[in-house]
């Protein structure tokens, strides 16, 4: 912030408060970066095979599963809402694309488009319940959560639905210039969402309505429409993740992506986005995604019991959020 204004110098307490706010925001991201470095040092020395190229590419691939949905989730949470339906939405997307491409005979392009459209529509529906009728987002997406998981299992008879042979799906499961395709998608979307969040009227309106919905409404921001669109985008991102997952597994699977919403929300919150809305950063979420993925990868490599992995992840995530809350308490405006 090198720019200064030619107005009279303001009271120093304002300046101090501003400095404090900016500092603690930076502290959060630096802390996360430091934690990632520490994880690399620890896992690099303790977990065999962690630093190999193939494992690092694998980490990128795993990160994509969380990251793509996490970008949209960050905006949803900045707006002061939440979407817990990610896991089932991804599973539903994977089944949907497989079914449409095979049994329903729509052909691959149409199957993919249909999957994305329906994913978007379902998200928009949840957003509509939230925006129009003030159904709490948690409840609206809890309903979607249950319905989509059930629907995915029902359509697929709880069996994997194999994808047809196709160069397109091979491409999605493969690599672009040595980088896993899902990771490329994630990175491209990261750039898109960074621009949306920081540079578009839409993105800034999301911050405004999350920070003070009444003020945003008074300023003429279409609060309802934006709320609906945020959930619609999240539905779209989950559907994209579902298609990528189906391509990776070679089949659509109604039981896949169990607990994915946990990782996605955890990544956002670890990134420092306040659940109360109004503040947050996509870039910090990206750090959160790396953090979560590294922990998952490390626990596997170190041979930790699969059930205990969940325990460790749970503890680490709550701790990270606790630190964030304590920092945030200091950060909060008191004036």
């Amino acid at each position, binding site marked *: 912030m090198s*720019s200064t204004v030619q107005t009279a110098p303001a009271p120093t307490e*304002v300046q101090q408060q501003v400095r404090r*706010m900016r500092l603690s925001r930076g502290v959060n991201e630096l802390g996360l970066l430091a934690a990632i470095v520490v994880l690399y040092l620890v896992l690099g020395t303790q977990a065999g095979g962690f630093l190999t190229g193939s494992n690092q590419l694998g980490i990128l691939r795993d990160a994509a599963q969380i990251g793509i949905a996490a970008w949209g989730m960050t905006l949803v949470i900045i707006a002061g809402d939440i979407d817990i339906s990610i896991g089932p939405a991804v599973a539903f997307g994977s089944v949907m694309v497989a079914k449409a491409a095979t049994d329903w005979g729509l052909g691959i392009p149409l199957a993919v488009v249909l999957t994305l459209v329906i994913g978007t529509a379902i998200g928009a529906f949840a957003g509509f319940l939230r925006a129009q009728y003030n159904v709490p987002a948690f409840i609206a997406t809890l309903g979607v959560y249950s319905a989509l998981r059930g629907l995915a299992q029902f359509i697929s008879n709880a069996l994997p639905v194999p994808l047809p042979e196709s160069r397109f799906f091979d491409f999605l499961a493969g690599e672009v210039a040595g980088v896993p395709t899902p990771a490329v998608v994630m990175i491209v979307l990261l750039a898109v969402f960074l621009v949306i969040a920081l540079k578009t009227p839409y993105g800034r309106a999301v911050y405004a309505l999350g920070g*003070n919905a009444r003020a945003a409404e*008074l300023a003429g921001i279409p609060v309802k429409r934006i709320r609906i669109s945020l959930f619609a985008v999240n539905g779209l991102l989950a559907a994209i993740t579902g298609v990528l997952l189906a391509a990776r597994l070679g089949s659509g699977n109604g039981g896949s992506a169990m607990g994915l919403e946990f990782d996605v929300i955890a990544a956002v919150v670890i990134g420092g986005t306040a659940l109360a809305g109004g503040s947050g950063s996509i870039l910090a979420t990206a750090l959160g995604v790396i953090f979560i993925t590294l922990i998952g990868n490390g626990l596997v490599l170190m041979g930790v019991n699969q059930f205990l992995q969940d325990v460790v992840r749970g503890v680490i995530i709550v701790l990270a959020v606790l630190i964030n809350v304590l920092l945030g308490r200091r950060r909060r*405006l008191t004036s």
Partner: protein
Amino acid sequence: MGSLNDQRKVWGAGSEHGSDPVAQTRAVVRRYPGVLALDHVDFEMHAGEVRALLGKNGAGKSTLIRLLSGVEKPDEGTVAIGGTVLTGGGSREASRLGVATVYQELSLVPQLSVAENYHLGALPVGRGGLVRTGWMKDSAEAALAKLGVRVDPNAPVGALPVAEQQMVEIARALQGSPKLLILDEPTSSLAAAEVDVVLQAVNRIAAAGVGIIYVSHRLGEIRQIAHSASVMRDGRLVETVSTSGASSDDIVALMLGTAADATVSMSHQSPAPATSRPVALAVRGLSVPPKVREVSFDLHEGEILGIAGVRGAGRTELLRAIAGLLPPAAGTLTLFGEQLRRWSIRGMIRRGVGLTPEERKTDGIVPLLGVDENIVLADRSTVRRGPLLSSRLQRGAARKLVSALSIRTPDVTVPVGALSGGNQQKAVIARWLHRGSRVLLLDEPTRGVDVQAKAQIYELVRKLADDGVSILFVSSELEELPLVCSRVVVLREGAITAELTGDNITESAIFAATLADGTGSAAPSTTGESV
């Protein structure tokens, strides 16, 4: 009202047994930075007495109440409750000595029942640690019945009319059998018809020997229940008068002091009446029950039209209805010649109407966003390059307004929540200037703003009017209306009851018109068709 008179006799009998006064202050002084809030105030009242406390905003009423209820300590002098001097033990000490205060804002939990609210914080617990629900309901019902209110103790408080909620609050305050009950504008949020419930209860409480301090702006109801009124002005207790002996004019004169009209005439170099210019906004028959009733007026281009009225008179609702935030039950707007029957907030903004809300923090600013983003919030079309926002253009646009409005901020990217109230207010006004709004609805724009910022806001408003912007200026601070407005309409109980123009815009004239007399005959109903 026959029964009320009987009760007054009881009150009269009680006060003759005079013992220690229930409340007494001796030469109390209270200073705030830059303000002498209380200047050697001697105040005394006895058991069973109902004392009205009158004065303009900032006269020192609230400070006196805070001292009596122990919330604050005097800088000099003593406060005694029932003959015992407060030693600075806070509100707890005062409440132990028998002071109960009911503030304007209700502190009830709307979802809980009447009985639970009555016992809030100290639910009656029986054997086994369970709440004694039966007893709880009976006692709440009985306590309310004593005040003359019959309410189902099972009903959620939020479902009751406001007057009955007020009674639950009062009943709760009476639980500790206080000697002194302070009621801070208990009727300001009530419709006229509901006021009687509260007045009856006040009479009953006084009849039981409790001293009551009654703060209100409604002279009519003060006459009905209070025998005497202590008038405050500029931190001093000017006089305590008998309400039957003094006329409304006398009381108004006491509140304003003799200097009032002098300051007004001095400041009254206000712009020439703009009523000859074209009408920017015509409001006809606008009703938002129960707060706004058939309001009609014209706002001319470049005019600053003041809207006066006590809190609860419907000013905020009127502005919100015009802005498209509250759907009106009836009425039309004509905005720059375009007649509207239905309008939305976004439509009104597009047509050039901007509202700065009374509650700046909850409705006005987005505290975490920068000053620049708050300023461009209502119109980002001029700060874009293609589809993307340009931080440079955004900062540039903000800087222009920051210096035009002298908003004090170290940098335009500073979160607006870090600024002082006055600067936040200017940022909210700047938002509409950036938008190019031609009609501004300013709801208490100087509330919570320091003196210097106030002067700057007045100047800004006048300058905007000179540039042709039409402004509705709502204010509770009577002295500022003559300073900025070329015309003032007075809202009382949701309807326009008076209109003042030119030299008639004086503090005392506005003040007299805003105070409801309760007789219904006082002020002539003017306006409708505007001049």
